[in-house]
């Protein structure tokens, strides 16, 4: 009952949690803003001084920034495309009655439970290694030259690893959506003479519009900050070929020891994430309206 008393009690009980969350957020943010206005290098930590917006100017005009921004967008876009284009047919398959369906489902979900660092190491050393990797072995079996993934197509390699990790997520969300599709609607379409393909195009795809939107929004949030896979496999290289914004900020802070510049970069990343979110919601957000 929403009486005066329970409302007051509810707020009182919520206050500690909200306060804690607020402090947890506001303190790092304020500190980041503060550091972003300082010349503050860990190599010469005593000599910090206030420089205003100089760090932002430096970060935004750094040619590495544009490269990292491009890499970030390519990475996010490609992984989204792969996970949805492969996730939909996978979900359709898993929705069918097949022998050992629960085992198959478990196997499909498994990559999601593997830690990013571990899966990146497995891909790097066991699968994509140009000499001892599985792909190289297959390539030599069919007489082709093994691809040196992390030198010849480093960004593609990272995209494949990240896509492999996120495919289960997309598949799972789409699978649950498929299971909620009304059976009688499909039968009505069958009576109406729709083929399996027409049923998919006219009924299933529109039904999946909303879960696909959810997948895009949630994946984007996490894909903007991909770090472990890059750190473990390529270290952002060769050159800047696999450096995304998150990795660029890391390298400013802990390779170049420039805390001020990294803080400015972090704030820029926040703004970029908001811009991406704004456009995403404009483009796909209307699918979420009931």
């Amino acid at each position, binding site marked *: 009952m929403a009486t005066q008393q329970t409302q007051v009690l509810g707020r009182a009980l919520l206050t500690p949690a909200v306060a804690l969350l607020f402090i947890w957020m506001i303190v790092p943010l304020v500190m980041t803003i503060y550091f972003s206005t300082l010349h503050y290098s860990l190599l010469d930590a005593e000599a910090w001084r206030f420089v205003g917006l100089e760090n932002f100017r430096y970060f935004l005009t750094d040619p590495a920034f544009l490269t990292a921004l491009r890499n970030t967008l390519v990475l996010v876009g490609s992984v989204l495309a792969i996970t949805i284009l492969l996730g939909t047919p996978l979900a359709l398959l898993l929705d069918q009655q097949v022998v050992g369906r629960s085992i198959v489902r478990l196997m499909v979900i498994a990559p999601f439970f593997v830690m990013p660092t571990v899966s990146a190491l497995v891909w790097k050393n066991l699968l994509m290694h140009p000499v001892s990797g599985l792909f190289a072995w297959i390539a030599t079996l069919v007489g082709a030259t093994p691809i040196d993934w992390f030198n010849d197509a480093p960004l593609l390699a990272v995209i494949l690893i990240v896509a492999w990790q996120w495919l289960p997520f997309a598949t799972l969300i789409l699978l649950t959506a498929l299971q909620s599709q009304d059976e009688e*609607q499909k*039968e*009505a*379409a*069958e*009576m*109406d003479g*729709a083929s399996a393909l027409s049923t998919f195009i006219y009924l299933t795809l529109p*039904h999946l519009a909303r879960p696909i939107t959810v997948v895009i929004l949630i994946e984007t949030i996490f894909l903007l900050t991909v770090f472990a896979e890059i750190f473990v496999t390529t270290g952002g290289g060769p050159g800047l070929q696999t450096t995304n914004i998150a990795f660029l900020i890391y390298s400013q802070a802990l390779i170049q020891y420039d805390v001020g510049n990294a803080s400015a970069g972090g704030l820029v990343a926040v703004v970029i994430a908001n811009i991406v979110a704004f456009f995403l919601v404009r483009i796909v957000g209307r699918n979420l309206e009931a």
Partner: protein
Amino acid sequence: MGQITLQGVRKSFGPVNIIKDANLDIENGSFVVFVGPSGCGKTTLLRLIAGLEDVTGGQILIDGKNVVDVPPAKRGLSMVFQSYALYPHMSVRGNIAFGLKMAGLPRPEIDRKVEAAAATLNLTPYLDRKPRELSGGQRQRVAIGRAIVREPKAFLFDEPLSNLDAALRVQMRLEVTKLQKQLGTTAIYVTHDQVEAMTMADKIVVLNAGRIEQYGSPLELYERPANLFVAGFIGSPKMNFVPGEAAGEPGVATLGIRPEHLKIGKEGEGWPGTVSVAEHLGRDTFLYVDAGTLGMLTARGVGEFSLKAGDRVWLSPEPARLHRFDKEGAAVRA
């Protein structure tokens, strides 16, 4: 044309026999209602005819052609589902047009047919709305529109009115019957509501536990039920059953008499009993009477009676309206 014949149709899911040897001849243009208690297989039988389920055995003939191996869309039937099963993201126009679009009809012809169907069902103002913007009755009409626009050999209705409120149900019942008469298309209608069955049907199929108990016109079922099940299922309140011996007819196992054929008579006439409950509906009075060895009897009196619980009454059955059943429950005709 829409002549549908079932010959020895059987359906089992694993070891469970849902439909046991159904034989039925549905004439072109007639309105046939499948009625029975839940779980009797009436919906399964309809889905077998539609082609949404495969038969385990037997033949289904539409206009003399066996369609057991023909996919649903090619059978020339259209179905109205219980949940309406409208396509939620398509407009009313899109919903009605979908079947024609799948059949590859040219655009102008689709438009013409959709407009015509919408006009028949008073849906023209709603053509560009989505199903969720419509009321229950309107959705129902869209579902019917989707069925009639394909000009099928027969309509299949799967409890289409069960999601509507009582008043709307009576209205839609009338509309569906009128529409079917107007189009002259064969219709098969599944319901568990015997009032719907009695009012709409040209012929009723009473199903029980996967078996066709009786097939006949509503009045035939009412006046000459073939067995105890049909006698008890058709008519409201239920027919009274009394043991033949106690009623003074040792030759028959069970004697049936409908409440409306039990006269509330003068003292000393017919079966004596004590009123246990009297329901006063204004137009009718229903008396639930404890008649001793005859068991509980229900009697209908026209108009208002001053009888109340605890009063003594005498009930005399109309002799011509007595139904006699043998030990197996089959009707015995004189």
